[in-house]
């Protein structure tokens, strides 16, 4: 009702202080002294409405002034936060911090484990690859010098190559020993022949020390057997020369 009347009143002429001063109520009848009460009531109502409207307007203006004042001051002057609010926010922040820290720690663990695993595998792979490469290179070198006809290396696996390497090493060792024995025997023969031809040229201690003799006689035997067994196991194409040495060495040492 009041609001409706306020709207209509904005169109009507509003009561002013002068209006109030000029109000003249009609005298009542002799029977009933004083002003006509209906008139008084109407004026009072209008005044009440106007006052109400003014109060509302004042409140709105006060809010507006505060807002403008706050803008002038730069910031809203806040109430200091209550102890309770500070505690609640602090514990919320701590909870959040702990979750973040846990997530980071988890991420750290997972990545460092993954990295360790990765590095381990790479290291193993590199070591394996290094070993395989080295074995293959050695085998290839041996094959190239000892066995030019060795066919399709592609079909050989590492184990075969390693067997070949071991065999070739033993073969080389046996050759060395045989050759040494042969040369020593040859030297001894030469000395003997020289002695026959010109005995005075020989040093007085003509017989060789027994150690040297025994070495010459005994040592070639075991490598010789190794060599023999190897040639049996896997006769290489270089057989003829090797056997030639073996035969001569054998004959020399037996003489």
């Amino acid at each position, binding site marked *: 009702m009041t609001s409706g009347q306020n709207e209509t009143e904005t169109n009507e002429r509003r009561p002013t202080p002068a209006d109030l001063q000029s109000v003249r109520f009609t005298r009542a009848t002799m029977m009933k002294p004083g002003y006509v009460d209906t008139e008084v009531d109407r004026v009072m109502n209008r005044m009440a409405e106007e006052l109400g409207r003014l109060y509302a307007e004042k409140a709105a203006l006060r809010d507006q002034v505060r807002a403008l004042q706050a803008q002038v001051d*730069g*910031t809203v002057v*806040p109430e*200091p*936060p209550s102890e309770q*609010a*500070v*505690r609640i*926010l*602090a514990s919320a*922040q*701590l909870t*959040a*911090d702990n979750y*973040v*820290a846990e997530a*980071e*720690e*988890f*991420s*750290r*663990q997972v*990545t*460092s484990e993954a*990295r360790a695993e*990765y*590095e381990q595998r*790479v*290291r193993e792979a*590199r*070591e394996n690859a*290094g070993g395989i490469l080295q074995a293959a290179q050695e085998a290839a070198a041996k094959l190239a010098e000892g066995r030019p006809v060795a066919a399709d290396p592609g079909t050989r696996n590492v184990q075969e190559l390693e067997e070949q390497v071991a065999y070739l090493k033993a073969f080389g060792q046996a050759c060395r020993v045989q050759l040494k024995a042969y040369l020593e025997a040859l030297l001894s023969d030469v000395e003997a022949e020289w002695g026959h031809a010109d005995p005075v040229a020989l040093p007085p201690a003509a017989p060789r020390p027994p150690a040297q003799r025994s070495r010459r006689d005994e040592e070639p035997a075991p490598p010789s057997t190794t060599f023999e067994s190897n040639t049996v196991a896997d006769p290489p194409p270089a057989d003829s020369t090797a056997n030639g040495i073996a035969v001569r060495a054998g004959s020399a040492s037996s003489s």
Partner: protein
Amino acid sequence: MDIPAMRANFAKAGATGDEAPLYFYSHLFLSHPETRAMFPVSMAHQRDRLFAALGDVVARVDDLGSLVPILQQLGRDHRKFGTLAAHYPAVGASLLATLEHFDDEWTPELAKSWSEAYDVVASVMIQAAEDATEQPAWWEADVLAHDRRGIDVAVLQVRPRTRYDYLPGQSVSLETDVRPRLWRYYSPANAPRTDGLLEIHVKARDGGPVSSALVRRVGVGDVLRLGPPIGHLALRQDSDRDLLLVAGGMGLAPMKAIIDQVARAGPARRVDLYVGFRTEEQIYDRADLRRLTDENPWLTVTFAVSEDKISSLEQGEVGDVVLRHGPWLSREVCVAGPAAMVEDTVSRLRQHGVPDSRISSEVFAPSRPGPSVDGEVTE
């Protein structure tokens, strides 16, 4: 200002450990909610740093000569966080509330002392920030290339959108939208170029939020924010001595920048670079270093590996390898890398007889989120 009383009061707050900074930030965010967005989600490191910084200030409050430059640096550096002059009174009010909260014998005189001291600190910081306004508070930079090198290293090419000045060997703080409000320091691996490009080397630290994101999530087209450059690993302008550069791991980046500087600006000098990694496989920038040695006859690069027995490279800690190749007595020396490596190398060179005045070094520590008072840098 009653300095002894202020120190006693600060000690009470400091004795509570995490409680006082926790109270301070909660108070600040409740009374000024707009400040919350200036901080990262997790406040744990922030709290440590706040009271460490305050402790420094309180310790030096009667020695303004050393305090003022620190405050000026802090004030300039805070611009990139979006700090405005209007934020300083808010921080001051919350600081006083915190100091009062943890002191049973709080007095109005104490409040007055702190208030005065804080006004001095704030005005120095605000003044320094305002003096720096001819520079942007931060620079936006586009990621033009992102090259993964191995499982945890990336080399980024970034271009600031506006002019960005720095010296070779300095470090740049940077932030990515993927990890808002976390700033980390990286050292460009090139001298300033006419096209403005910066080469940034990043190693993903296990569990490191920013480094992991820069290596694994950031890509071409993303935008980074750069703060102003800091750091003091730099060539002496008055010297043209031959150089010995020693890098451990990601310490390589500033050394490349110095080499680039010598190549571009001279003066002509011999440069020998030694770079140490744990394994040969970790050497992430070999191709570009080979290009540099091919182009520059005055440069040699020697790699050392400390945990890789199969490698045919030099074996051992990089400092040890350097000493095996000496003598270096006439050189100017720069050393950068992890703390243990820098310490080891510098002490070996000192024993070798290189004077301290010709050794400059910088520790590249993982994940330290900002400069300390001494201006240390993270990778």
